[in-house]
């Protein structure tokens, strides 16, 4: 990181930290939305950006997490934030189960399978599968989250919960990217055959990253359920998966900062375009297209790894 970028990052973090003090509830809630989608996009970025697995059904895992949290909370009165690990587990294992037989499919075939899985999940939710999802009504009356006896209710409070989670996620995912695991994923993305030839167990890495990304989306789902207090299948439609997909690719697959920036644009722009009233989605579509044409590699393309000799000598690569 050079001096300019570290300054920019510091400024951004400082601005974000104090933003709720100056913005009204509406703008804070827009930022909350951006935070949630940012979280989801970061989790999708692991699968799609780092490992290059075409996943256009991420909403399924998001839904798994949200419903797990909602069901545990409304039926068994488990405090909503305590359900985080369970939501992650359910979403992760679900991803593992569905990905196991299909993970070897080539790009576009995997794409349609993930779309299919997310549609099957949505239809199952609508049809009240096992009688626990509440059908099209969804689940309501989810309790507000409590942190050390403090009930989180206002958009301002959710802001710190959500963005705190985003910061944690960024920290962990950046560590992961630098690890042996992250390097294996990138190898997989660039050339699967060569990776396998070099002894990378491709199926193992693909399945692990699928489950990990899904688990993270599941936790984002828990936060979503806690914030909305009501969830219904329409919140997890195919369109949500498409939006997440666009965020990752637009941002520059594999670049954490780019993905966050794209989350700001893709979720924030339609809100700013409210001025255009009925034409706002038209403008949005056009902007999407033009941004992609202007920056074909994404807004902030992922850079290849660069190691200095000093680092090599220190042996930090091991």
């Amino acid at each position: 990181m050079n001096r300019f970028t570290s300054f920019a990052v510091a400024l951004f973090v400082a601005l974000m930290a104090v933003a709720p003090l100056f913005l009204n509830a509406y703008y804070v809630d827009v930022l909350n939305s951006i935070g949630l989608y940012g979280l989801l996009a970061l989790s999708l970025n692991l699968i799609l950006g780092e490992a290059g697995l075409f996943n256009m059904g991420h909403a399924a895992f998001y839904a798994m997490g949200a419903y797990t949290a909602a069901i545990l909370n409304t039926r068994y009165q488990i405090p909503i934030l305590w359900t985080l690990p369970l939501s992650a587990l359910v979403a992760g294992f679900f991803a593992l189960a569905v990905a196991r037989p299909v993970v070897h499919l080539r790009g576009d075939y995997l794409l349609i399978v993930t779309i299919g899985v997310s549609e099957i999940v949505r239809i199952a939710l609508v049809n009240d599968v096992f009688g626990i999802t509440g059908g099209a009504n969804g689940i309501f009356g989810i309790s507000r989250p409590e942190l050390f006896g403090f009930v989180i209710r206002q958009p301002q409070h959710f802001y710190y919960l959500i963005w705190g989670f985003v910061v944690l996620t960024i920290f962990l995912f950046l560590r992961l990217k630098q690890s042996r695991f992250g390097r294996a994923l990138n190898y997989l993305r660039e050339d699967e055959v060569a990776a396998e030839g070099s002894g990378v167990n491709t199926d193992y890495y693909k399945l692990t990253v699928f489950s990990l990304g899904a688990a993270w989306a599941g936790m984002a789902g828990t936060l979503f359920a806690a914030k909305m207090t009501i969830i219904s299948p329409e919140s997890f439609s195919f369109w949500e998966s498409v939006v997440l997909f666009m965020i990752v690719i637009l941002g520059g697959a594999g670049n954490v900062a780019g993905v966050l920036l794209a989350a700001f644009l893709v979720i924030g722009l339609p809100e700013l375009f409210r001025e255009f009233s009925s034409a706002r989605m038209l403008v949005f579509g056009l902007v999407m297209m033009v941004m992609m044409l202007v920056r074909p590699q994404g807004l902030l393309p992922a850079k290849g790894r660069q190691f200095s000799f000093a680092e090599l000598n220190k042996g930090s690569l091991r």
Partner: protein
Amino acid sequence: MKKPLLALVAAIGLVTGSIAQAADAIKIGLMAPLTGSWASEGQSMKKIVELLAKQQNAKGGVLGKQIEVVTEDDGGDPRTASLAAQRLTTQGIVAVVGTYGSSVTEATQAIYDEAGIPQIANGSTAIRLTEKGLKHFFRTAPRDDEQGRIAAQMIEKLDFKQVAILHDSTSYAKGLADETNALLKKKGIKVVFFDALTPGERDYNAILTKLKSANPDVVLFTGYYPEAGLLLRQKRAMGWPVPFIGGDATNNPDLVKSAGQEAAEGFYFLSPPVPQDLDTPEAQAFLADYQKQYEEVPASIWAVLSGDGFRAAVAGIEGAKSTNGGKIAEYLHKSLKDYPGLSGPISFDEKGDREGEVYRLYKVNADGKFVMQKL
């Protein structure tokens, strides 16, 4: 990367700038689906409320001040709606009218309630919306259980013995289907078919073929008018003469356009009176003005009910002599009795539901007109 950032800053300036103006008017919010699947309803809602506000302002506004309508798009989707609601609450509105879909309204209820702003929904009929004990929530639309009761009653009166029920898995249609199903079973009328179609498709022949093999006397379809139109048209092409009954979401002139007159003839549906059948002098006068202004009729009764929501809100502000949300809500609950609305007298019970019977049975005649049935 400089240009998008600049645009961002400029756009924020634009938005905040537009909020700042007209400080001493009384603001009433309107939350409507201006885009998305229910855009036609939303556009009508906007036209109706804006016209009413104009007329009220010509009469001197309310409490000696002019009324300003602040409209936000809920996109017919809960997440967009909750943002629209957050946005409205920050703009100093006194009351809010809307919105159409039940789940969309539900996503905004808590936001308005916590902000102490009375909300009057116009198209949301789901039962649970008024069962939460919210003090600031009202609706000018009737409830689904009311409709289910009438539906079962009509099926009994028309002497149908074997009923097929088809819904579309939306929360509204499923609720109505379940309610009617339970009531019919109690009356000893056989329900021979119960399933859901997928809305938004074109071809329902597979479903009609399956329905036909269940051999019902009548089919109750509880979904919306686009699908109802397609079902009727395809039913006719199959040459199957079974009568169809629709719920209130099939009440839309576009139904006949889509089905074609011959296929729509004989279709029954339950609904609050259609705009043209509103016989109150207020409604007659307003519809004439509306047609003069916009050269069309309102999309449906649901859009008209947003006009009633607006009138009730104005009456509430006037009656409470205050712009305090709590006082307006109390006035609407307790003191507003038989206020002349477009769709008939308006009174609210302690839950915020509208009092009085509103449903009528309609039948489509050979000219494609909706004719109220006397039963």
